[in-house]
């Protein structure tokens, strides 16, 4: 009896692999995001039905969006991920009012100077390009919760935010040489770039403060640069853009870099900024501004983008940001493909100095079924 019981157990344990299809679907329907991804990665059988599962899950979680986009050919996991990230970013959106209420000394101008400097440091140190976006997000959250009492201490906060952001990215990639990593994070190195305004101990201390004021949701939150990459990849896949038209991508990244310096824009969802940057860049090069592929994928309609696109154009047309513009021009002068020489020249002109752009008119092909209604996650 004892023997059969244990044999029985072995048989039973293996049986989860053989759950009937409908039962498996039922169980998976209870999971979302990372947990669903994990469940699908556990065995061949589960993995085989992943696209159907992601489709079901998307349909159930975002019915309004699904009603509009269901017909198009969609890589469902990526789609689910996109919409889920759009929900997640809303959890940690900085509030402009809260920042203004908390800060008496530091204003939007000071923030612009600091973020431009952080962007310069990122170039100098050749940091992964999302890091400065993360650092700026940490900065805005710090500003919501802590009052900066004197301007002299503001740069220290920025340095600490950059250091925390670098640490987080390193931890995630987790493949770097430990020695290198340690050297890159040395507080003395951060003190040095402030022209020794601060000591290594001060940097260490402020890092700890920033660390406690950034919650997990914020640290794992996607940033505008990540969204831009996803949108770019999707529009290449969907045939809206040729992958060699890198001038479009470069200019869109540049717009995001400028948006980073602007406090008002920085309190908008990163996905919205990325969408607007790409749309503005495409418009500059005479492309279909916001093709259906992107409307479906991003769940932003052309109408959703209009206001922010105009604002982004204004910022682009009025931000001097000489240091950043010079850096970008220098770095991109010799890039680009020969057949797009003209486009590169145009992109470099926009990068070189502010050039006024017209307000955005929303006339492009808006999705017929929901031209006035928002379909994205709320």
């Amino acid at each position, binding site marked *: 009896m004892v023997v059969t019981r244990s044999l029985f157990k072995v048989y039973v344990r293996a049986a989860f692999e053989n759950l009937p299809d409908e*039962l498996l679907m039922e169980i998976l329907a209870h999971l979302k995001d*990372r947990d669903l991804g994990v469940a699908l990665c*556990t065995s061949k059988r589960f993995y085989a039905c992943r696209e159907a599962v992601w489709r079901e899950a998307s349909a159930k979680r975002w019915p309004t969006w699904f009603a509009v986009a269901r017909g198009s050919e969609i890589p469902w*996991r990526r789609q689910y991920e996109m919409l889920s990230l759009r929900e997640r970013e809303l959890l940690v959106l900085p509030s402009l009012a809260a920042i203004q209420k908390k800060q008496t000394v530091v204003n939007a101008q000071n923030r612009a100077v600091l973020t431009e400097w952080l962007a310069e440091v990122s170039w100098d140190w050749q940091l992964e390009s999302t890091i400065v976006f993360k650092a700026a997000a940490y900065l805005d959250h710090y500003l919501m919760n802590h009052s900066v009492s004197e301007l002299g201490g503001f740069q220290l906060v920025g340095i600490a935010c950059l250091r925390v952001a670098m640490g987080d990215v390193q931890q995630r990639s987790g493949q770097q040489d430990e020695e290198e990593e340690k050297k890159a994070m040395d507080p003395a190195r951060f003190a040095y770039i402030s022209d020794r305004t601060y000591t290594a101990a001060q940097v260490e201390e402020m890092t700890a403060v920033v660390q406690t004021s950034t919650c997990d949701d914020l640290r794992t939150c996607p940033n505008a640069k990540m969204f831009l990459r996803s949108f770019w990849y999707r529009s290449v896949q969907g045939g809206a853009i040729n992958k060699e038209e890198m001038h479009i991508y470069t200019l869109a990244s540049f717009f995001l870099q400028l948006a980073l310096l602007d406090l008002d824009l920085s309190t908008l969802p990163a996905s919205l900024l990325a969408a607007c940057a790409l749309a503005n860049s495409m418009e500059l090069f005479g492309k279909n501004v916001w093709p259906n592929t992107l409307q479906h994928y991003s769940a932003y309609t052309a109408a959703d983008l209009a206001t922010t696109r105009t604002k982004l154009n204004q910022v682009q047309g009025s931000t001097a940001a000489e240091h950043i513009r010079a850096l970008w021009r220098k770095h991109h002068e010799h890039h680009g493909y020969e057949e797009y020489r003209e486009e590169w020249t145009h992109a470099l002109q926009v990068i070189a100095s502010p050039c006024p752009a017209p307000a955005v008119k929303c006339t492009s092909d808006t999705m017929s079924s929901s031209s006035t209604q928002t379909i994205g996650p709320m």
Partner: protein
Amino acid sequence: MRTVILRSSDGADHIVSSEAASLSRTVQSLLEELEAKEGEESPLIVPLPNVCDCTLRKVLQYCIQHTEPGTNLTGRIHVSETRRRDLEVWDRNYMLVSTDELYHLVMAAHYLNVPGLLELCCEGIANLIRGKSPQHVRQHFGLVNNFEKAEEEDIRRTNLWALVDEKELAKK
């Protein structure tokens, strides 16, 4: 109230009210057939060849609990707030079973078609998956990692979010 006899795969009989038995839609339709054939007077015996005694006992606990006074057949309508809360607590305790038992229970709930129980079991299994890494889930459910090397590499590359926190989880 009418009683019926449910017979498990290993031949054990369970006497329950037809009300409780009918929470299973499978049993309910079998009962209707039997009644039409045998008439209302004869004892109703429903054989359930797919459910072992031990599991059937557990399923019936659920059915009886969910047909107590104050609940109607579907177990949803006309339930007072206190009763609903009591049931929730009861359900939570009811779910404190081993993974093997849970597997049998979900299969039985599926075969017997008891919607409430099926929902409860699926949520229970989902709960065992939440917050774990793929390797932990495999261990827990006795799944074998049967991916080929190349496939696994592909998963690692394209399903980043499934792997992101593995380091953190390993620490716990």
